């Protein structure tokens, strides 16, 4: 393949490394929710800034792919811009901000609102892949717990939350059980997004570079958020719809407008919000919101 950036292979990683990562991905797909160790490489962006996701994307990316990169649901946040540019430069692939057009979506902290379809791949950037890590810091211990499917620790933690606060106090990185076997960290997405993982038509791949782990949820795999019969899992709800596009039942960001308590709630998924506005949906504050929040669509 012709290198796009002089001196580097297509999509930065050499083919041997990609093959090693693809083997890890295949193993991860074969054992849904199981964390596969892989020899993560140093990447030209810092650990903790998406090196795992970038390595997974680099390994599955082909010249015909169309890539979308989001961070906090937005295509325009600094790190999303940086990663998208990286693949533009090293692989020369087409990029998009439209979820429906993308063949690969790399994400940090969100799942797009628009349901993903068959043939699409969602690549998650994962900081701490081990759902039990904050209950048991030792890798040797947690690997044994997974091998034995011994998840009592996690249930005790959730119970203690309920005893102390009346609710499960985990609001993001909410643990899930995949295909009835492994408990898995969905990456720090808000628990609002957990139901989207269940029986998704898209392939979901998770890359943790610093921690050297890859895991996967194959298409049409049951993903269940952990809960109790008398305290069923519930997602966040928002009182008002998006102030720009009037969408309901989507995840909203709170934007501080002034120092007098002024706030507005807008879609976290910027592409979803813009698409709705382009289709004529109008929120309560469209037209009055600052341009850097509303973007061009509010002036169009």
């Amino acid at each position, binding site marked *: 393949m012709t290198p796009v950036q002089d001196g580097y292979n297509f999509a930065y990683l050499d083919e041997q490394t990609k093959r090693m990562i693809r083997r890890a991905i295949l193993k991860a797909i074969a054992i849904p929710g199981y964390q596969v160790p892989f020899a993560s*490489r*140093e990447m030209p962006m810092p650990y*903790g800034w998406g090196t795992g996701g970038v390595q997974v994307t680099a390994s599955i990316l082909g010249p015909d792919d169309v890539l979308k990169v989001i*961070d*906090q649901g937005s295509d*325009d946040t600094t790190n999303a811009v940086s990663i998208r540019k990286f693949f533009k430069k090293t692989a020369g692939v087409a990029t998009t901000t439209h979820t429906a057009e993308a063949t690969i979506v790399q994400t940090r902290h969100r799942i797009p609102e628009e349901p993903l379809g068959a043939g699409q791949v969602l690549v998650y950037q994962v900081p701490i892949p081990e759902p039990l890590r904050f209950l048991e810091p030792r890798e040797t211990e947690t690997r044994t717990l997974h091998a034995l499917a011994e998840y009592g620790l996690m249930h005790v933690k959730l119970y203690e939350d309920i005893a102390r606060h*009346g609710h499960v106090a985990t609001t993001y990185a909410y643990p899930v059980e995949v295909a009835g076997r492994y408990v898995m960290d969905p990456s720090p997405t808000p*628990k609002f997004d957990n139901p989207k993982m269940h029986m998704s038509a898209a392939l979901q791949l998770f890359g943790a570079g610093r921690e050297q782990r890859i895991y996967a949820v194959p298409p049409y795999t049951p993903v269940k958020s952990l809960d109790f019969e008398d305290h069923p899992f519930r997602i966040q709800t928002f009182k008002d719809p998006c102030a720009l596009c009037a969408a309901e039942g989507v995840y909203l960001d709170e934007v501080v407008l002034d120092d007098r308590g002024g706030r507005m709630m807008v879609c976290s998924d910027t592409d979803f919000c813009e698409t709705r506005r382009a289709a004529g949906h109008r929120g309560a504050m469209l037209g009055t919101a600052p341009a850097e*929040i509303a973007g*061009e669509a509010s002036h169009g």
Partner: protein
Amino acid sequence: MYVAVKGGEQAIDNAHRLLAAKRRGDPALPDLDVAQIDGQLALAVARVMAEGSLYDRSLAALAIKQARGDLIEAIFLVRAFRTTLPRFGACEPVDTGAMAVERRVSATFKDLPGGQVLGPTFDYTHRLIDFALAAGFAPPPPAEAEPEADGAMPRVTDLLGEEDLIERETADDRPPADLTREPLSFPAERDIRLQNLARGDEGFLLGLGYSTQRGFGRTHPFVGEVRFGAVELDFVPEELGFPVPLGTIEVTECQMVNQFAGSAERPPQFTRGYGLVFGQSERKAMSMALVDRALRAREFGEDVVAPAQDEEFVLSHSDNVQATGFVEHLKLPHYVDFQAELELVRRLRAEHAAREADGRPHYEEAAE
């Protein structure tokens, strides 16, 4: 707004342009030459090579220039470059006994074959700021002497080894593991541990080594010797079948002699801690040797009670490129997760206020 919802791309480009200008500094002053950095900031170059795991002086010097003197940033640049290089094989083990020594001191013997060679060292200098340096005075030329006829300088541990006073290092036929090609897993054998320590952060290892001296995993260390100099690298190309010299590299080696171990079956013997790093860095080599010995606790049946003895703790946190990335990633936007936490805290506070108003007990659910 650092995470402008719109216009991020232009802002990033501008930030990088500003950085480039700041890096250059006052354009009225001459630009720093990479060769100057290599020659005059040689110890910074050594550290970047050691923790960057790549022996290339001019590349490390360039990385220091690009990183504005931030050594961890320079190490990161070198690592990211290193990962793209093809690997054509592993060299033969270096023979540090045959080192062209610039400096060698032993704290265990007053005199020994080859002698004590002080070499270029800050030890015994008075740490007084030298204002003459600011004025640009040239130093006097170094003193010279004829080399001794028999320049052999055997390692102290070899001298002790002849009497079996110190444990023997036995090589096994297992090819050494490579932590840049295999994910770190636990328990980790000594080859992996030493690789990890060799590229580990100097400050982290210094703190851990220091902690063993203060009782957190005490090992009764003596510096058998520290030596610094050039060693030859030999490589055996498959098609030739015999070693070919590739050139020389400078390394610092520390052999720490530690508290003895023995049993009913085995007579008492001193044990070893080992440190080896690129370039001249005695602080790093010594710290590495202290931590290496502490991490051998399991092997000697010692209780693992201190951080420096805990291999998961040490090996998982020694890499400064990993550490700096993960610590600094907290600067990235987290507002989606923060929103989720905000929502929960507001709800809990509202419930709390409602209970207060009703005069109901606070922890009703806890009694279930």
